[in-house]
């Protein structure tokens, strides 16, 4: 997990979803951040828009129990890598 990914996630959660920065730790579960299910979905939309990508639903469902901030960051990085791979192939 790159520090820049975590920073972007933290920034968005803090500025748009009123989540205190100190709560956004890699091992923190997404469901522990105080967002209801609708807000969690909005957050995932927003972070996908930020990175201009979409996480396939079979790769990560944000409502899944025990999913952590680190899991989300890794999914984002994988999608970035595969998008970069596609771009190179093209």
């Amino acid at each position: 997990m790159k520090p820049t990914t975590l920073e972007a996630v933290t920034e968005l959660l803090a500025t748009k979803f009123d989540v205190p920065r100190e709560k956004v730790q890699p091992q923190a579960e997404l469901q522990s951040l105080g967002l209801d299910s609708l807000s969690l979905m909005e957050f995932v939309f927003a972070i996908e828009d930020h990175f201009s990508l979409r996480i396939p639903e079979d790769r990560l469902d944000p409502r899944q129990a025990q999913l952590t901030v680190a899991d989300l960051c890794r999914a984002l990085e994988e999608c970035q890598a595969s998008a970069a791979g596609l771009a190179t192939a093209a």
Partner: protein
Amino acid sequence: MNTRHACITGCGVVSPLGLGLDAFDEALFGGQSAVRAEELQLPGAAPTRVPLARCAFDEGQVQAPSKVPLDRGSAMALAAAAAATRQAAWEPGVTDPERVGIFWGSGMGGAASFDATCRGLYAEARRIRPTSVVTAMPNAPLAELALRYGARGSALGYACACASAAVAIGEALRALRDGRLDLAIVGGSDALLSPGVIGAWQAMRVLAPVNGPADGDGRLACRPFAADRAGFALGEGAAALVLETEAHARARGAIWNVQLSGYASNCDGMHITQPDPSGQARAMHAALRDAGLTPGDIGHVNAHGTATAAGDAAEAESLRRVFGSAPPAVTATKSAVGHLLGAGGAVEFVATLRALHRRMVPPTAHAAALDAGFEIDLVRGSARVLPRLNHALSNSFAFGGTNAVLVASRVD
């Protein structure tokens, strides 16, 4: 024992004539119009000019109590209610939450937000956001208001087209009279100036054309009761009032100088768009009875006055039937702010309250020749002072046939 009337202890407005009561007042009584011509470009159609009245309002400055993205209309509702509660010096906690209600009107709810969602989906293959439903649902503004003010008594929405807000205000009066609530935040909002919605009204041929020099680049496009009237301008906005039982207002030391004295609503039950003068006259008579007043007590009527050929003819006739040879001073606010659809009844009721407060009737914002067939006393040119003005009516007549009439009075 509750009194028949409700005390109006606060009011707030977000209107094309200005944000806030002072700006609204100054422009309204100064005879200004906020209507401007804009180009509407729809796919598959030639560009056309339409008359619109926009608010200089930034919804990004409004925090959603729900944290859900706000429809522009919901943001206006929150801003208007914030101004109204501030003027009333009321905040949540002052009143038992189970005795607080929200009564709100909207004609098409979040149709503009949904138009944007559909445009994104069909034209740009964009995803539908998970919050699309709760942003665009017709009760979104009142749900946000209930969250903001912790209202647990009731939160009711009224969708009766152009009578929505007037019905909401009137139904709140009934709830207060019945002893079900002590205080209600009431009004209406609509912000529908998106291409799909404007196009829908344009397709109905009810928007005034804005091609002639007589239109003043749109400012004079909406000419209620004129011989050459040709339709209305679409506006956007919101207005909110704080209504209280007199016992509750007195107990908390509130100050008020106007009251909601009566209300009636009925339905023509005749036609989906054509208004019926007899239904309108019945509604005015019923509202007067409800207030314990007679036509002779009414010094001023804020007309529905849409400036459509059929609408104004019906209203002029119903006013003649109710007031006969002694017509009160009539004004038509839509010439200045446009047609605010579901919010119109609330913004026009605020205009009525300002007229009572100042004992002065704001002018209708055009100078065209009146229809010779109408026996009404339309105030134009400049505001008219009425030193003995004590009671006024505000009319709202809707597509679908719903008629709603509010009666307001000075408290001296």
